[in-house]
């Protein structure tokens, strides 16, 4: 136990208390699965894609307050974005949208970014380029 206790912003706590877009999605177009029990954070992110635009995103997360808040925020930020735009969403943008994260919690935002990228990759694999059907 150290003195480096994370102090969360109001926004982080708000998303932790009332996480947006929680739960699985019926037949999603892409699923991202990142993290492992060793580090203590596991995120599953599901996306719905219509005409190359992410119309819906949902998540399930095992992890700390920051992990839940970043999962919630990334699903909010990504809705309405094209695949290209979504791929540019950085972990910093997620952290900033939450009013910042304590330094030792920045890895949670990295995980959120990776979950999103992993879901998009899954989507792109299932829907190969030449004008996916």
């Amino acid at each position: 136990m150290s003195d480096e206790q994370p102090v969360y912003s109001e926004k982080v706590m708000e998303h932790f208390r009332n996480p947006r877009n929680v739960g699985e999605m019926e037949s999603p177009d892409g699923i991202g699965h990142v993290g492992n029990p060793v580090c203590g954070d596991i995120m599953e992110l599901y996306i719905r894609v219509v005409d190359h635009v992410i119309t819906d995103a949902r998540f399930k997360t095992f992890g700390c307050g920051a992990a839940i808040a970043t999962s919630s925020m990334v699903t909010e930020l990504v809705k309405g974005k094209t695949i290209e735009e979504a791929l540019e969403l950085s972990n910093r943008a997620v952290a900033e949208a939450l009013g910042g994260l304590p330094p030792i919690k920045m890895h949670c935002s990295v995980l959120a970014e990776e979950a999103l990228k992993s879901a998009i990759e899954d989507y792109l694999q299932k829907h190969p380029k030449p004008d996916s059907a």
Partner: protein
Amino acid sequence: MNRVYLDYAATTPTHPDVVQAMLPFFGESFGNASSLYSYGREARAAITAARSSVARLIGADEDEIVFTGGGTEADNMALKGIAFAADGKYNHIITTSIEHHAVLGSCEFLENLGFHVTYLPVDKYGLVAPDDVRKAITDNTLVISVMHANNEVGTIQPIAEIGRIARDAGVYFHTDAVQTAGHVPIAVNDMGIDLLSVSAHKLYGPKGVGALFVRTGTRISPLIHGGAQERNRRAGTENLAGIVGFGTAAELARGTMTEEATVLGTLRDRLITGLLERIPEAQLNGHPTSRLPNNVNVSIDYVEGESMLLHLDMEGICASTGSACTSGSLEPSHVLLSMGLSHQLAHGSLRLSLGKWTTGEDVERVLETLQEIVSKLRAMSPLYKAPGRSAQ
């Protein structure tokens, strides 16, 4: 909202009687105990009285108590002080993998200076095998350091047995009794203890003061040099009010310890039984019977500790976890991992430690609240598959 404090193992509220006993020493009795005039003599008398109270609590002689700045300093002094005073031949230390960081950190420091340290394993309940201690002793062993009870999981070690082994081998025996002093009976002579660490704020005393029991005849170097305070073993003007508070807390504890342990033990068992009944796929960490009367530690599968703490805090309940997320590192509790828990279960651990002002209603409130919190967190956990649903 009424807050429910269930983190007495982290720190206890200072008892009102202790505060009252301390107050004069911030005011009219402010003297420096080293001064010859009346103020100094009053201060010296108060420290002497406190010293004998602390000594009585553990069955020691007054002269064997060195006041320190807390439990961590006492642990540091025990290990480094013994190591610095030793002949070069005695360069081996035996300890366990579940000690408090004050002991582990001191051992790592001594390793850097060339000492060899054996970290003994524990079983799934967090118990050290006395036979492992015996086998680890070599001709070079200087000191054995095994905590009396673990701060996270509450397991009480077979200290008297280990003390006998140490004595037979002619090796010093140190125990970190920060979690037990004032809660569980201690008799340093019967238990074969040569050095013992205590902290005041774990027994309703103030923070910033503790003590190291040093058996007469033990060769130990001071860590802090300067004046002749504490019989040349710990320099610096004494923390007068703190020491007085510590003495009062020790005196109170000696009178109430047995009854308090009975009351808390009953509440503890209600809490453990209730948690395991209400929350499926939860397990008790630590020993079922050889356990601190106030310690509950459970692992709740599929959920993470910090999330549970934050939700409990929103409901006014204060608890603790062995999850990495609150430790400032990415590793969960070294104690739980040493006991063989998976990372997932270590991250899902929750410690509820009870104390003097814990009530039956508190226990009920925690049971109800935690059940809801766990359901909520499991519903959003990708690891949890609700009963009746097939895994993906």
